[in-house]
């Protein structure tokens, strides 16, 4: 028995060789280096110099933007993520009730999620252009003219709107889960006189709980790192040079209202050239992501069942 076990191990090693090397080079090594860099003063031109806890002290109360970025990110987690999940769930539910053209409708709802995020963001900024966009043209009929992406009070709600337009990615997952919900249960509930909303909350939601949890956890992780949509929206709405080529001044525009944690990390590393400090921010991001992931792995029956195989 033992030689075969060992042989199998060697065979597995041969098949997994490149992936294991990849894990070492692109996961373990950079994680270790990030922790090390977080205790150093470091920019791309000079080698890291140990500075004890200077980055950490700056992180815990001196960085003028860290609270803004953290609050914005929390806003996205608490407001944008649940709205997008609920929207995706409702659209998926509506789709299960379609008798005709459900395939075409599914494609229509999925399309915005498919195209490059840069393209969908530019399109959305155009549609929500405060002075010339079609949405405000209609809203102005009833006397409303929100500034959308150009107004600090409206920029985050505008991102929610964008996230609803591209909800197709999780909607498709919900749709598959909803189609697995046993019809008999729903019919029995209907015979018992349960209304649509009662059936939704008491039968459908519990039946698709693992998928909901998965969407919630990945939604939280995505909100922390959210970058492309706010960066492109800021640049396009501002109408000036976007980030990159040394200038990352547009990130968070207007008034840092769309500055996420992931964007500030990038800005500190490559805009302010504070790579040691950005590494400290990365360690915090890793710890928070890790906690969210542990929650996922412990609570999520789908994963653990697979792992236990």
């Amino acid at each position, binding site marked *: 028995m033992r030689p075969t076990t060992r042989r199998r191990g060697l*065979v*597995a090693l041969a*098949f*997994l060789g*490149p*992936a294991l090397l*990849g*894990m070492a*080079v692109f*996961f373990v090594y*950079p994680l270790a*280096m*990030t922790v090390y860099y977080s205790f150093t003063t470091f920019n*791309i031109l000079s080698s890291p110099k140990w500075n004890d806890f200077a980055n950490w002290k700056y992180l815990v109360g001196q960085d003028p933007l860290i609270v803004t970025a953290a609050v914005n990110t929390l806003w996205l987690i608490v407001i944008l993520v649940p709205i997008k999940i609920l929207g995706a769930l409702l659209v998926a539910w*509506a789709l299960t*009730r379609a008798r005709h053209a459900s395939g075409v*409708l*599914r494609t*229509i*709802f999925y*399309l915005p999620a498919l*195209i*490059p*995020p*840069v393209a969908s963001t*530019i*399109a*959305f900024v*155009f*549609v929500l252009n405060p*002075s*010339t966009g079609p949405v405000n*043209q209609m809203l102005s009929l009833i006397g409303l003219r929100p500034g959308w992406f150009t107004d600090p009070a409206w920029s985050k709600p505008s991102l929610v709107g964008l996230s609803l*337009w591209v909800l197709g990615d999780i909607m498709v*997952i919900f749709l598959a*889960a909803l189609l697995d919900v046993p019809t008999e249960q*729903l019919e029995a509930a209907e015979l018992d006189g349960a209304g649509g909303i009662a059936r939704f909350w008491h039968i459908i939601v519990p039946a698709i709980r*693992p*998928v909901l949890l*998965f969407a919630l956890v990945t939604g939280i*992780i995505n909100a922390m*790192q959210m*970058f492309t949509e706010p*960066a*492109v929206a800021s640049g*396009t709405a501002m109408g*000036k*040079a976007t*980030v*990159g080529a040394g200038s990352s001044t547009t990130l968070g525009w207007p008034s840092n209202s769309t500055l996420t944690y*992931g964007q500030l990390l990038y800005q500190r*590393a490559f805009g302010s050239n504070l790579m040691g400090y950005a*590494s400290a921010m*990365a360690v915090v991001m890793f710890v928070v*992501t890790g906690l969210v992931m542990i929650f996922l*792995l412990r609570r999520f029956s*789908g994963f653990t069942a*697979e*792992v*236990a195989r």
Partner: protein
Amino acid sequence: MNKRRSLAGVVADHTILAVLAILFLAPFAFIALTSVMSAAQAGTTFSWPTSWHVENYAAVFEKLDLVRYFGNSLMYSILATVFMLASSIPAAYALARIKFRGANLLFLLIVAMMLLPPQVTTVPLYVMWSKLHLTGSLWPLILPNLLGDAFSIFLLRQFMLTIPKDYTESAELDGCGPWSTMVRVIVPMAKPGIAAAAIFLFFHAWNDYYGALLYTSENERAWPISYALAQFRTSRAVDWNLTMAATILAMVPVVLIFFSAQKVFVQGVTLTGVKG
């Protein structure tokens, strides 16, 4: 789901769906119409095109180096996909079919890698690629795929687990080693899963903005289309009509691939959600 429904209920459902469909499609209509407007009209309050300028699509190729950007995106997407398949199929096969110590731990690590925000490892990896003199190119985004892609390994493993064990066991009884079992039995049976993983990685590369910003922003010759697109309206002050034409052109490849492979694509998306 529910077969006994009143006519009124069915009509209500379809009305809601139709309104939603119009809302989801409206932005596409707005940008398509803007892409064929004159520059002057595209800059003013939105209205139906007063004159049609299909030649905007040719103009955008003349004014902007689109051929280069599309070429870069194609190179990035195709090479990344081919490299990923070569490295990730064997890894997924080992995780799905070979029993070895540490398999569970390894799978957990792959899930962790898959969910890790890219910003966490950005600084050390940027330093590494800059020491290798590869920043300013797309290679830091292409080459890692030679060493496996966590999401693809995860997806391929999930698919391979759905293949009944009988097939691989009978191949082994016929004297097939693990390699030939993979090549002759698993790969042909996992074709839909492999197609889905390939499409996802192609799309990921085509749509990538963060990676391109990080590694190519300093060198315009290396820009892929999705990064370049974000620059048109802003740093180059390109008119809205041309920006919209370029925006539509940037969508075309992914939309075409999606329509030609919709079935495997949807199947793949479903697998990523992990069955309830």
